[in-house]
């Protein structure tokens, strides 16, 4: 159960990093552009600074209260052990790979591969159950978006496009 609080600490660390980033950007980029001071016409920094200060002020409040906080139904019921994390991480790893490879391989190659990979990682077996959706779904989507809605999906280095 204690593992769950890792998420609490990670979110607080994220907020602290965001606050730090705001002040860093004000001191560097905005200072250089000359928009870190002056009246409301020229001062782009005042408003984000105030929002960041408010966030910073709430961090200790969360620290003090989250121990007693009642858990709602939002969070996961499974403990965050390494074996439980493995599958979601694999699935999102494949999705991440898809996003990286999409501009390179193009939609028509990357999408079926992604579907195949995620379905396999999710535990699905059997040729028909895997290959049929992996081929049918991307082409159905491509048809709706390209032929009907005239969207151009990424063609990749091979420049694969279908003139529907």
């Amino acid at each position: 159960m204690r593992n769950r609080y890792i998420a609490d600490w990670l979110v607080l660390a994220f907020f602290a990093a965001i606050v730090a980033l705001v002040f860093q950007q004000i001191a560097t980029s905005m200072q250089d552009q000359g928009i870190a001071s002056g009246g409301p016409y020229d001062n782009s920094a005042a408003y984000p600074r105030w929002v960041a200060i408010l966030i910073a002020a709430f961090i200790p409040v969360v620290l003090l209260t989250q121990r007693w906080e009642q858990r709602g139904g939002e969070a996961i019921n499974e403990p965050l052990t390494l074996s439980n994390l493995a599958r979601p991480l694999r699935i999102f790893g494949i999705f991440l790979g898809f996003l990286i490879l999409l501009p390179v391989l193009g939609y028509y190659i990357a999408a079926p591969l992604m579907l195949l990979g995620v379905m396999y990682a999710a535990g699905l077996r059997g040729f028909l159950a895997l290959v049929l959706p992996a081929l049918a779904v991307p082409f159905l989507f491509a048809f709706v978006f390209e032929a009907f809605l005239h969207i151009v999906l990424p063609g990749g280095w091979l420049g694969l496009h279908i003139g529907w």
Partner: protein
Amino acid sequence: MFRKLALALMGAAALMGAPAWAQEFPARTVEVIFPWTPGTSMSVTQVIADSMSDKLGVPMTVISTPGAAGTKALETLQSRPADGYSIFDAYVAPLVLQPVLGNGGWSYSDFAPLHSNLSAPFSIALRKGDDRWANFDEMMAWGREHPGELRYSAGARNTLPHMAIAKVLQEYGVVARNIPYAGDAEARRDLSSGILDFAFVNVGAYQRAPEDFNVLLVLSELDTAKEAFGGAPNITELDINLELSGLAPMGWSWWVVRKDTPPEELAVLREAMSATMKDPEVREAISRLGVVPLEWDYDEYEAIVGPVFEQLKSMGDALAWEEEQMDAL
């Protein structure tokens, strides 16, 4: 291994329908990158794209990528391959004004033009029933005596309307408070509720509700623009020389592609767009949207845009002048 895979895939692609590179240009959807949020101007682009798509025989879609006065859309074009499938609806703000203001390292001559598209003349107007001043000169006289008290909007800051109005104010020696707005409609709302003293109003907004505005000055030399604003006085009727002529004081746009686009593709697009802009139905539809369709073909690009660049450069200090004067108050 990869060769085999690629060959197999090419074979599969050929079965499904020939891929783009095997056919004559254009073989698939052509995209027009539009630099503002959806609205009336995007409709003009849609109208042209729709008609041009009939001539090219492939669909054309308009993608709105607003940001940094059109800079994001311009950068988007530059990030695309120069294959003629991406067109940029190049308004004066990203194409000429941003480099003039020192916000971009490109020049208008870095692009290959297809055809001119539209011009959108605008005016300086009061709300109806505001009779504090009978004409523009009277308002300027009042403004000189009350520095910093007039409030106006030119839409977003550092845009062409802002620059042109700042130039006029500078010539009159009037210091006024510019209030930036993301959308023109918001600015007109605050004009009619009395928060702003005057605002820039474009033809479309004026023609929709001429009874809402008291137009003092049309920022254009064109007679058609004067007519569009119900015959209100234009800049040629003022006593002072504003050094604003031709297209410089107005918003306008050309469709351009990357300069390294192959000549054959370029020729196909130019021919289609030229025919589209000559189509009376298209011109009629554009006019109804409150902007003026332009007739200049690609070979006039240098002659038209070049002087505008020079004029805007000389106008650039009007914005700096306004800021200095406001700070000094």
